[in-house]
């Protein structure tokens, strides 16, 4: 229902407002947040993200549309931030509204799993040591 790639801080409340209707009894939201220990084991003090928006946005929309039917009726919004992020800032937000909570949980988890796999966005870890490296997502178990 709302898909965006932005340099601005993510606003979860506005994503929730975009998906909620009076038919929805459940809202599930996911935030991916910059954490001190990334996938490696060196402490980071920030990440930077880069995207190919002309491909990423249609892919985010496709994931949202798949998720909105796959488990039952659901409404999704997905936003990804790009640029430089500090510790504690959200890089990705998914909001899902549905009549019942089981569908909302399933659709939200599906959307973030698929986003990590399919959407052309890249992440660079900036370590406290001053070094930096591009970090691909681990393949799904």
């Amino acid at each position, binding site marked *: 229902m709302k898909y965006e790639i932005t340099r601005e801080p993510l606003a979860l409340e506005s994503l929730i407002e975009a998906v909620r209707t009076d038919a929805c009894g459940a809202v599930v939201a996911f935030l991916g947040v910059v954490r001190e220990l990334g996938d490696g084991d060196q402490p980071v003090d920030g990440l930077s993200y*880069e995207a*190919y928006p002309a*491909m990423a946005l249609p892919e985010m929309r496709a994931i949202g549309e798949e998720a909105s039917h796959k488990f039952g009726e659901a409404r999704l919004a997905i936003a990804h931030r790009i640029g430089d992020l500090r510790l504690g800032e959200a890089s*990705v937000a998914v909001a899902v509204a549905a009549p019942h909570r089981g569908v909302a949980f399933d659709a939200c988890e599906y959307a973030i799993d698929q986003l990590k796999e399919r959407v052309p966005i*890249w*992440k660079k870890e900036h370590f406290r040591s001053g070094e930096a490296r*591009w970090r691909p*997502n681990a393949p799904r178990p």
Partner: protein
Amino acid sequence: MRVRILAFAGVREIVGAAQRTVEVPAGATAGRVWDDLAREFPRLSEIARSTRLARNGALVERDAALQDGDELAVMPPFGGG
């Protein structure tokens, strides 16, 4: 014909530019254009195997034929989320 290469993440850093326009023979494949780039920048070889290609925003295999004006995105493994 002319093709515009879009380079992302580690590829962009090695190439030193997010975009570059190249002149290639008519009917050149996506793989051919990528191989030419990797030959010019030998440091690309270490990430070449895991890199995917997209033509005008859609994933393609190496043997996809390009047309004049196409955008070829050269994409290392994704790290979004």
